[in-house]
């Protein structure tokens, strides 16, 4: 079931960073000496990275099937992430950066449909269904309670399982 399509797409479209590299025929050194090179700190600016992550997870990786820029390991996504980081560093607001991507790729790049126009259906229908359903459930439960009262007054003996 959950096989082929997505994974074919994945196989073909992700892993771009290494894609440019041809199959190495055991050309690599078999063993490199673990030296005493100092431990480097991972480049990590928590506040900036959180912002990058937030933005990147709302944008679709254009070459993947259903993954966000944040989640995709593809080269395309990595470049987009770098772009987001640079733009944020340069002082652009998240809105401006989003607008830039929408301008380039269309609304399709947003993983969350904007709440406007026809798109309201995808946001509101579930809420309406839930609200209507809740109303219906409460009405049903009340009807059953009334049924219980009606039977309690109608029957003299204890109708423990009144449903039969």
């Amino acid at each position: 079931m959950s096989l082929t399509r997505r994974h074919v797409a994945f196989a073909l479209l992700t892993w771009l960073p290494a894609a440019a590299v041809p199959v190495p025929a055991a050309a690599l050194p078999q063993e490199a000496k673990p030296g005493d090179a100092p431990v480097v700190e991972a480049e990590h600016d928590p506040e900036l990275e959180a912002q990058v992550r937030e933005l990147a997870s709302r944008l679709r990786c254009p070459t993947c099937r259903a993954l966000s820029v944040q989640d995709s390991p593809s080269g395309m996504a990595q470049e987009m992430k770098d772009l987001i980081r640079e733009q944020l560093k340069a002082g652009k607001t998240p809105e401006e950066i989003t607008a830039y991507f929408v301008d380039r790729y269309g609304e399709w790049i947003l993983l969350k449909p904007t709440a406007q126009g026809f798109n309201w259906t995808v946001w509101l229908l579930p809420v309406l269904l839930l609200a209507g359903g809740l109303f219906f459930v409460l009405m049903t439960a009340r009807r059953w309670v009334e049924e219980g009262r009606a039977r309690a007054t109608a029957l003299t003996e204890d109708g423990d399982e009144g449903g039969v």
Partner: protein
Amino acid sequence: MTSTIGYISVGGALLLSLAGATLAFVGVRTGNPGMARLARRATYGVFGLATLAIGTMVYALVAHDFSVSYVAQVGSRSTPLFYTVISLWSSLDGSILFWGWIVAGYSAAVVYVYRNRHRGLMPAVTGTLLAVNAFFWLLLAWPANPFTPVWPVPADGPGPNPLLQNHPFMGLHPPLLYLGYVGMAVPFAFGIAALVTGKVGGDWIRAVRRWVMAPWIFLTAGIVAGAWWSYEVLGWGGYWAWDPVENASFLPWLTATAFLHSIMVQERRQTLKTWNILLVIATFVLTLFGTFLTRSGILESVHAFSEGLIGPFFLGFIALVMIVSLALVVWRSDELRSEPALDSIASRETAFLLNNLLFVAFTFTVLLGTMYPILAEAARGVKVSVGAPYFNQMSVPIALLLIFLLGVGPALPWRRGSPELLRKKFLWPTAVALLAGVILFALGARHLLTLFTLTLAVLATGLIVGEFWLPVKARRQNHGEGLGAALATVVNKNRRRHGGYVVHLGVIVMAVGIALSSTYRAETEATLRPGQAVAFEDYTVRLDSLYAGREPHRDFVEAAFSVGSGGSYSGVLRPRLNYYPMSTQPIGTPAVRTRPREDLYLSLMAYAQNGSTATVNIIVNPMVVWIWVGGGICVFGALFAISSMGFVAERFGGRKKKTARETPKPVEAGVGGAD
């Protein structure tokens, strides 16, 4: 030769299922038991031919008989035997053949198990199942025929999709999912039989119980195994992307779960008859629809859909199933009416109604989100995406309400909840949950949604533990039993109920894993020279070596990283990139070190060709393992629950034959029963 045997078995299965379905429905109409007997034999025959067909295909795959179209499509002489056999389900035609075989197997099993029981229902059940069989054998005989002869015969083939031969889990996840997905045809057949015969009371529900549980267990295990597979193979450190393919497997799971709950209301209170039938119909239609969505190519583009015949075939069959089912429901609407009596809104009945509402709303949301790109393109002419941010935002509130209910529901008694009882059951769990929330906050948990989820999880756990603890306590007082003996007695007295509660506990464990791993995940990327190390979170990751190698079906580049914390290294992780002949892109295999507290997840992203550097993605993923553990608990609980309704209980359990419960006494009489 192989093709000929394939053709004969597929064509034979098609003809026999058509003939059997006709006989069965003639039997329903005339009440002639001879017809029903013939239909039953036809079902065994279909299964025999299906087994011959699939056996032939496996033989063709293993023997590398490239004159068979499917083998030419997915076979390869260099693929290892294991992956050659499982490439049976690596592409469309083969997976439909696998589907056909499973549906034939389920049909034969049901017909055999109930050969002397449920005589009123079984002819119509047999007929419906054979009709479903006929649809799949028609697909296999025509638009998805895997046995089409190929000429000239190629010397070798491309091998299966590289991703499907990258991890042994591929041998497990698809069959589990198929067994779950396809098995939903059985409850559907019972629902239709109930409508056709007008026996919409408790009989079909009792007959169908285990036949919903079995596919539900497979589907649950299949979905969890699929998530695990994604995590171990795809390299992005996640397990669920709300991909349409994943959604397709989740949708019938949701409606089947709703059904498992709502049948308890029908068994106990003789109501929700229409609703239950609609739920099995919906579940079956969603399995067809999911296959249609993921197999017809409609999600990629409308053009892919119109190219193949599979899409129109599925759409036509879905329409037929829906029209026939709904017409039957309308026709039987008088028999389906019923009103039970309640004494209080705070009762388990209300909890079940809310549970069903939430599951249906969940189903609708996922379905709408999955379909919306198609709708939007049709309505607005603009391509839009609906992805994880939408699904997460919409499903988290529903999921939280469900977690609340899965604790509260079992604690509410049927019919009425008296204030004293509610106080007794809710006081301690609520207090402990609030305390846990405060402690977590004091410990630094600042992510409000996660904090709320954890508090709810504690509440639900407390309520469920109470459902074990209170009767155990009563037994110890009244019978003077030890803790273990009392627990065993209580649990064994109603395995279905307590197995269900164990499933609830499993769901809570999963929810905690999902909440924590999605909010407290940390990730970085580093390019290292051999010997160089990087510190991230509490870990130090050092690149030791980078090397290339060759296996029969692929080449690979692997990097060895020493990982540890503080100054010392405690293990080696080897993420790699695999190169398959048929794929120009490498397929990565991440390396994961799993610990109860958190996973360390390394993906090799790139390397310099002279071996001087390797780029690695480092992800620290808290509590992920608990998602798989929770899934395991769910499966275990469900197996325990089913152990009271099946073969084992009937043969060895010493249980009374389950007859209609006209005069059920509360609790003590509830052996294998409803609540």
